[in-house]
């Protein structure tokens, strides 16, 4: 009996700690949600209003006064496009790093993540000129490319660590059974590392949707605005700061990622820890 009670207490304390932590992390989210659905007059007050009046003003405003649907479409296109580019390049690269032996392999393996080590501002100006010369400024194609470039290293790295974990015997078996290199990659290796590919893709999506600096640099009109840059544009103009609209747009940018992450939570935690150990 005593043993059971200690266990129960333990469990209760665990839930208490984890619950408090979750609440602590979620408070900002709940708070900006409550800001989004309250009238402007209740936002900036001497004392915070914890139970505001429900108002859909900001909700109507973001859809009627701004091309929100377009921003959303731009975001989605740029993000999915960039993830597609990343996977197309990272899977063969990761396979090569995980499976073949060649001179300089370890160095190349290091150069890839090293692209993440420098401050993005350093390359901002060169990248601006690069895209201007290519005539891609203010297009979602440019966003796709830049997001893909930013995330390629981490995507490669995650997939590589999954591939390294697959016993080489399986590929040897496939070779003896009569499969060529591409066949093995397509039919054996890729299905076996599917959780890793999903993890990498989601992480790339999260980074892409939050990307701000390069998007601001490249997008100068609503043609290429994404949600993250659109957010910044609510902070100007004759109307002053429209905090409730900002809050709603931020929420719009947050929901899809949240849903995806929640859906694949199990894969994600495994992928992240594996990356941590292996990487």
């Amino acid at each position, binding site marked *: 009996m005593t043993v059971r009670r200690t266990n129960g207490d333990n469990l209760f304390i665990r839930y208490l700690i984890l619950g408090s932590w979750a609440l602590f992390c979620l408070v900002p989210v709940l708070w900006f949600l409550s800001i989004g659905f309250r009238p402007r007059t209740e936002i900036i007050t001497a004392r915070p209003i914890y139970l505001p009046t429900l108002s859909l003003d900001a909700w109507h405003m973001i859809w009627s006064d701004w091309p929100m649907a377009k921003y959303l479409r731009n975001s989605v296109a740029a993000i999915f496009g960039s993830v597609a580019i990343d996977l197309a390049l990272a899977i063969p690269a990761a396979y090569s790093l995980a499976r073949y032996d060649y001179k300089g392999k370890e160095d190349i393996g290091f150069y890839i993540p090293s692209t993440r080590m420098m401050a993005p501002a350093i390359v901002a100006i060169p990248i601006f000129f690069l895209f201007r010369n290519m005539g891609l400024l203010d297009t979602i194609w440019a966003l796709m490319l830049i997001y893909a470039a930013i995330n390629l290293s981490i995507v490669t790295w995650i997939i590589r660590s999954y591939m390294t974990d697959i016993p080489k015997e399986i590929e040897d078996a496939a070779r*003896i059974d009569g*499969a060529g290199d591409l066949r093995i990659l397509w039919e054996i290796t890729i299905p076996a590392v599917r959780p890793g590919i999903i993890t990498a893709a989601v992480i790339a999506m999260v980074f892409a949707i939050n990307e701000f600096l390069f998007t601001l640099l490249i997008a100068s009109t609503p043609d290429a605005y994404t949600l993250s840059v659109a957010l910044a544009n609510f902070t100007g103009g004759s109307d002053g700061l429209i905090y409730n609209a900002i809050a709603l747009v931020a929420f719009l940018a947050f929901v899809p990622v949240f849903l995806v992450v929640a859906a694949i939570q199990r894969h994600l935690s495994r992928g992240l820890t594996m990356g941590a150990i292996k990487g």
Partner: protein
Amino acid sequence: MAHIQLRGIQKKWDTIWGVRDATIDIADEELLVLLGPSGCGKTTTLRMIAGLEEPTEGEITVDGQIINDVDARDRDVAMVFQGYALYPNMSIYENIRFPLRMRNIPRGTHDQRVREAADMVELGQFLDRKPAALSGGQCQRAALARAVVRQPRVFLMDEPLSNLDARLRQAMRVQIKRLRRHLKITTVYVTHDQIEAMTLADRIVVMDGGTIQQIGTPDEIYRDPANAFVASFIGAPPMNLINGEISHGRFHADNVEVQNVDIDTEGPVTLGVRPEDCSVVKSGASAHNLTGEVFGVEPTGDITFLTLKAGCGTMEIKASRDYRAELGAQETIAFDTDHLYFFDAQSGQRIRQS
């Protein structure tokens, strides 16, 4: 139908030798076992036959045709791996079917062939499952079915039973033997387990340190070992090796003496005597060879293992099932002098009777 020849095969990685100068002739339909401790080069040899490793030097031929440059997938061999190597994302059915698909065998025949192969290893009712839902023994049988499904020229097996427990190993050994008799395919089988080697092999190749120590039938390997390594590797418990000296036709070491040795050598030699060729005799018996102190007694039911400590080292003896003794007691042992082996003290090479 395949007659495999390895001629002067060498494998070297930078400065590390994998296999040195291996020459093996594998007859059609033969089951050849490569036996040795880990790191002896047996798996490397097998992988070179499979085409997964390239020999640094030497030729591999199948039916007289050199296959060194033939890609693994074009060699028409099938291999069973130690870790099963089933494709985790495919059902057992798809696993077994995979080699048929890869080799463009007419689709219409697939279903029948997969089911036949699965039935051969009694796996018929598990075809829908994924490998993760199968036990080790079932996985290994699935791997066997995948190997037999397209009836290759050569079977290669890399320690296929070493991940299984003892009872299952025995059952699978019988299954492999039956399967082979039925299919009549040349087979090269790698193991470190001498029981597997003795029970399955037509011939055994004993390897150590990348070098072939002896090639022979299980009987030859057991009865007529070429050197001290082979002698001590085959047999459970292994052959007792006693370092001593021969002078005037008499072998002696601490607590050990053998009269009328029929070899011509004088000086230091190693005497080999199998545990089954030792018997416990009454103390003071006229014909005894060794005295020692009882160090351990392990009754196993049908036989009792006796460990003796003598001046020359520790001796393993197979005693009768009724044998019992107190630890520390003195025992007297007689050797079956028809089954003694002498090895060069330095090289370990067998010194044969004159």
